[in-house]
């Protein structure tokens, strides 16, 4: 009888094969619809990898901002670079880790192969780290050279900063993996899905807090953009640990910098050890959970709540069209229940939801001061982007093929489905956040008069929410997740952020000059015009072709 071939040394190791596989899948996407199906003669298959190059170009462009820190100390420059790197890398890892580490489809392909779970884990982490390094490298490219001209910098900076950025990417990836593993260990396999989602949301928020918000807090606490290596509180900020490495070796070389550097090295080593060694066993049990196909009872409470919501005014009036009502129910159910959607949506919009709260934290000055009022306006306008982001992401799902049923139904176009999804996001995401925003604003000591600054954001909200439905898009769960990646989406979001910033800027100016009433009237008229024009376009849209 024949038997399997013995292992030979002339073939690459499983880990190498898997690393190459996961990277290929990342670059090409895991499914083929919408990413091109045929390999062009002599070239690689159509790939989201090309779009990745554009994303990297965009990040490199974004990195040009570090030029504004020319002449600062190495520690200040490095803190900024590491803070932003932590945000960019953290966002990528937090939003991708769930799908990369626990992909159910991959379970059917790989789990019956002779691969140690630890090898699978290492290969997946390696892919996450590799992409993180690309992102970090693109963003830090300009900063590397700015560091040469830093006040206490020199030619050693690029080398040291490259090393500390690699360490930061490792720290970030390993931290996310450890959080998953701890969830598995503490909460068990049965609750993995729910906790994975919650974990990603928490990690996303933590990353934003640690990386982007801290510089703002520093500004408010110190009244200056400068952060000093001697400040006691910087020891609590991960970006400062890695900036400490830069400063210790290529900057001031002060004792505090060495302590921070030591903290960075220790933290990175610790989380890498935990992720790859101490907690690796929990990963195996997590993988097995993904393979278990036992039916889960739907949580009646949530579905019941959605049904009740839809059945009472004003939602009953707003959702009279049966298709829109069905789309609303579908979207609401998936927002609450589906793992894939939850992992995509909530971590994706978490920073959107967190940042406004931090923008409006009192600056310590007069509650009526111009900066505070403007902050409220900016926060509300920024929050207005949350439904746009959510709707944009809701279009993508691993179950995209199931939505072929929409195309089979006797509908001329996807308008009714788009409207249902949009309304679900407005009701279940945007409205509660606006209410919470107003509540927290009052709790944090903002005057009631500042509430009026919520209006510009509120007025623009329906317009932003209509954007994802243009061009026949916005059909919930109808596209493969792979088509989600790429520079197009990043630029689209950045464009929306600029638009919301313009709205907030004008409203802050109008508030300070006493023209707010006129500004709100003008904005309302413009918003109504845009809303109805876009709505008519959405109504006319027909089904796009399936690639």
């Amino acid at each position: 009888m024949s038997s399997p071939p013995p292992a030979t040394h002339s073939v690459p190791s499983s880990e190498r094969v898997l690393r190459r596989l996961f990277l290929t899948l990342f670059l090409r996407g895991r499914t083929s619809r919408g990413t091109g199906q045929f390999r062009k003669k002599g070239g690689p298959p159509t790939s989201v990898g090309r779009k990745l190059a554009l994303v990297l170009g965009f990040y490199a462009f974004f990195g040009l901002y570090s030029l504004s820190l020319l002449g600062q100390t190495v520690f200040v420059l490095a803190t900024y670079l590491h803070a932003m790197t932590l945000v960019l890398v953290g966002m990528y890892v937090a939003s991708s880790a769930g799908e990369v580490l626990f992909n159910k489809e991959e379970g059917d392909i790989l789990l019956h192969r002779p691969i140690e779970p630890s090898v699978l884990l290492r290969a997946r982490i390696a892919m996450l780290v590799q992409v993180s390094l690309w992102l970090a490298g693109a963003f830090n490219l300009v900063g590397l050279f700015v560091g040469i001209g830093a006040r206490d910098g020199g030619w050693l900076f690029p080398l040291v900063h490259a090393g500390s950025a690699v360490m930061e990417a490792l720290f970030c990836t390993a931290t996310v993996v450890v959080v998953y593993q701890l969830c598995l260990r503490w909460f068990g396999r049965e609750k993995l899905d729910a906790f994975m989602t919650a974990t990603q949301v928490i990690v996303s928020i933590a990353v934003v807090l640690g990386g982007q918000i801290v510089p703002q807090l520093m500004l408010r606490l110190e009244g200056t953009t400068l952060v000093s290596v001697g400040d006691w509180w910087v020891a609590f900020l991960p970006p400062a640990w890695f900036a400490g490495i830069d400063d210790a070796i290529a900057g001031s070389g002060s004792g505090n910098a060495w302590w921070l550097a030591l903290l960075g090295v220790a933290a990175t080593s610790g989380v890498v050890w935990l992720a790859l060694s101490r907690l690796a066993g929990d990963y195996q049990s997590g993988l097995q959970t993904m393979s278990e196909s036992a039916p889960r009872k739907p949580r009646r409470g949530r579905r019941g709540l959605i049904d009740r919501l839809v059945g009472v005014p004003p939602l009953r009036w707003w959702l009279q069209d049966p298709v829109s009502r069905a789309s609303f129910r579908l979207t609401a159910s998936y927002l609450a229940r589906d793992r894939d959607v939850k992992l995509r949506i909530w971590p994706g919009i978490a920073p959107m939801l967190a940042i406004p709260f931090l923008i409006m934290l009192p600056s310590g000055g007069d509650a009526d001061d111009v900066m505070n009022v403007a902050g409220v306006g900016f926060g509300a306008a920024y929050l207005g982007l949350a439904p746009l982001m959510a709707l944009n992401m809701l279009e993508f799902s691993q179950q995209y093929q199931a939505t072929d049923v929409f195309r089979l139904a006797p509908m001329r176009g996807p308008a009714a489905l788009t409207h249902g999804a949009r309304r679900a996001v407005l009701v279940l995401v945007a409205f509660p956040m606006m209410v919470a925003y107003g509540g927290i604003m009052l709790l944090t000591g903002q005057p009631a008069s500042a509430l009026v600054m919520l209006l510009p954001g509120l007025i623009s909200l329906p317009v932003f929410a209509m954007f994802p439905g243009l061009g026949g898009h916005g059909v919930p769960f109808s596209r493969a997740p792979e088509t989600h990646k790429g520079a197009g989406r990043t630029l689209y979001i950045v464009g929306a952020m600029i638009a919301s910033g313009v709205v907030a800027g004008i409203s802050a100016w109008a508030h300070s000059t006493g023209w707010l009433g006129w500004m709100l009237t003008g904005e309302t008229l413009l918003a109504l015009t845009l809303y109805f024009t876009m709505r008519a376009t959405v109504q006319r849209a027909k089904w796009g072709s399936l690639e």
Partner: protein
Amino acid sequence: MITIDRLTKTFGTQTAVDALSLEIPAGQIVGFLGPNGAGKSTTLRMLTGMIEPTSGSATICGFDLASQVIEVKRHVGFVPESGAVFESLTGLEYLTMVAALYAIPEAAAVERIRQFIAFFDLSFETLTEKLLGAYSKGMRRKVVITSALLHNPPVVFFDEPLDGLDANAAVGFKALIQSLAHEGKTIVYSSHILDVVERVCDRVIIIDKGRLLLDGAPDELVTSHGTGTLEKLFTQLTGGEELERRAEDFARTFRQ
């Protein structure tokens, strides 16, 4: 070749496989039958090391499923019901990747792949030029079957292998598994197409609600129960007699 002793799997309070015990010798083709939700796929997933049994034990080719799972995986091939593949790889990329996981050198893998695609009537160009996502369901199934047999495993588990195959490919596949059994391989074949099972398998195991209902040679079972066909025996055992009445009730809803 395969020994299963009181193998059990529970999901919360639900028991998917309930103390299943079996012995399957080398070279046997075993039809593994049961209605939807009977526990067939869960059993196969346990035996291929994809999920951990709650209790009980199993050995495959002498390797213990609990303590030597990697060795077990090295000695089994599995065609899962989902037929999942990495859609953004070409067929050749996918198969050489799978071969590498079993430490098969690329040249040897390509040679075996050529033999398989010749058998399945696929062109090598299709395999190298087209992404798997662009394959038809049947073509994809052929690739999955090839990937399960590439490493020449002594035990092969098929979960609904004919799903998507055209009539010719299905006939060829039946001939293939008989040839494999003649080579001494053990085949466990889970399917709902009972006449194929009746014709191809040496032995039939029927389970329901995770429990073993019946085990024996198809013709002997049919004769001893006096049902005439395996299909009738299956419906009798698994409570399918009411299906005709239910179909009539269902059709009546359209008349109202």
